[in-house]
């Protein structure tokens, strides 16, 4: 897709939604959808474009959420700088984990395992450390003012997360058009061949990890402001790691809109399952797991991949018809 037009169009359409939708339930649904779309776009940068599959992206989500919350609650920092600090902290954690794992040359399953382990270590630490409130968690005080990054109206929250998603779309778009992006994709396709062409694979992967972590951390910061409560399970639990990878894989890994499309589908499937079989624990995730296996089995390039395939097929057909 060339140019910024599709992104602008999507953002405009999405921004108009709260003007027609009034129901808080629907708005809440959309906010949480955009939340996992944002977290997923973070994963997409490292996993979709970079081919490094992280199973522990909650490490960044949770760091963003906790730093944002703790700075406000324990150090009296204003919500806006706390938000920014949360993103920076997430990026920093990404840099550390990336430096360690990529320096050690870990790829594939080993990389997935190690990222899983890091997320679990953080979860355990957060569940016992006094600064996070340990098992009880951290509660942000309700303060419905712009200065506290809290809003009476759901719609405003919606526009905030939409703005963040828009930025993440632009980042992915830029990635596809820069040298860094070309190098990242090359490393994904074949790291050795890329190195032979002068690509510093370590730096490129590390850079992708930092960007990826920052974006997913932003989702965590938003979570803290929206729900006003963070604990170790929410922050660093496997659920967020799974949702972060699920949305781009289903929507289309390595594409700009993949995570957004995937988030809509995942949430819709979740709601559908609840509607059919009731609100039972674990049901959503059963559906997600099945969908993951089915998508990998039948449509590894995700929904967008299916459409691209059809489009290419159509083009090829037209070309043949024209020359035939």
């Amino acid at each position, binding site marked *: 897709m060339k140019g910024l037009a599709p992104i602008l169009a999507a953002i405009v359409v999405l921004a108009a939604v709260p003007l027609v939708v009034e129901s808080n339930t629907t708005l809440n649904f959309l906010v949480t959808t955009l939340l996992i779309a944002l977290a997923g776009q973070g994963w997409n940068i490292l996993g979709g474009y970079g081919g490094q599959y992280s199973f522990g992206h909650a490490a960044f989500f949770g760091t963003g959420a906790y730093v944002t919350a703790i700075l406000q609650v324990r150090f009296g920092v204003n919500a806006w700088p706390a938000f920014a600090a949360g993103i920076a902290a997430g990026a920093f954690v990404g840099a550390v984990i990336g430096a360690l794992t990529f320096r050690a040359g870990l790829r594939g399953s080993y990389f997935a395992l190690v990222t899983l382990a890091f997320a679990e270590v953080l979860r355990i630490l957060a569940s016992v450390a006094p600064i996070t409130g340990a098992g009880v968690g951290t509660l942000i005080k309700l303060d419905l003012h712009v200065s506290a990054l809290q809003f009476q109206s759901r719609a405003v929250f919606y526009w905030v997360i939409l703005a963040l998603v828009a930025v993440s779309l632009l980042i992915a778009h830029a990635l596809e*058009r820069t*040298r860094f992006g070309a190098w990242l*994709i090359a490393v994904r*396709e074949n790291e*050795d*061949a890329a190195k*032979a*062409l002068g690509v510093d694979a370590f730096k490129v992967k590390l850079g992708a990890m930092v960007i990826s972590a920052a974006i997913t951390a932003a989702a965590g910061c938003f979570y803290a402001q929206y729900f006003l409560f963070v604990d170790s399970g929410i922050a660093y639990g496997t659920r967020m790691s799974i949702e972060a990878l699920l949305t781009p894989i289903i929507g289309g890994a390595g594409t700009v809109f993949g995570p957004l499309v995937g988030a809509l589908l995942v949430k819709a499937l979740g709601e559908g399952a609840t509607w059919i079989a009731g609100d039972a624990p674990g049901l959503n995730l059963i559906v997600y797991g099945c969908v993951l296996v089915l998508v990998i089995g039948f449509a590894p390039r995700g929904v967008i991949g299916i459409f691209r395939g059809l489009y290419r097929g159509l083009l090829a057909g037209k070309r043949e018809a024209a020359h035939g």
Partner: protein
Amino acid sequence: MVERLLAVEGVSRRFGGLLAVDTVSLAAPAGRITGLIGPNGAGKTTLFALISGFLAPNAGAIRYDGETITALPPHQRARRGIARTFQVVQPFAGLSVRENITVGAHLRHRGRAEALAAADLVGREVGLGGLLDRPADTLTVAGRKRLELARALATEPKLLLLDEVLAGLNPTEIREIVPVIRRLCDRGITIMMIEHVMQAVMSLSEHVFVLAEGRIIAEGTPAEVAADRAVIEAYLGHGAAKKLGGGA
């Protein structure tokens, strides 16, 4: 310009109990084509891996363009102008032919438009002009070999290491690609090529090194090497030189 662009000095590489490369010394004179031949398993590709930085030698040094590069990682050698093709071709499968070449071009061109344009030129030079928009994984073997070449060329190398770039090509395809290689040399690129297609290597190279069981067993002009007794024995077995009535 340094007379010997590349100098490999006493380089050895061991894998467990196997000494794959045994105290090899050779040189590639600037602006010339140097051949590297030898029976299968002789260690030629290992040597290329050592020169391009994918393996570290257990002993010895590698000098390039006046600098000792033995400790440099592959991407930095590429930046200094050493490019290689892989014996088992490795296209970036999900990308188009042009995008593949662009990755190489990006080494010298930061902007995407410039890199794409440069990739276009290189692609045409190598004979892939009509296929630039195709996905790389739809190319034939010959096409993939050209793509390997194009990608390496896009990095604007001074030294080009070709690892069996003719393998798997039929005689027509070979006849088409040999002039391309010769033109590269005319442009000033130093080439070292591993080949089994004797005719091509002997007609392209000005100097040939013969590697067998990790050691250099002969070197010289193609004619000298072809008549060398040790070389004949390495390929045809012990006593073959005598039987053939030849040998230096």
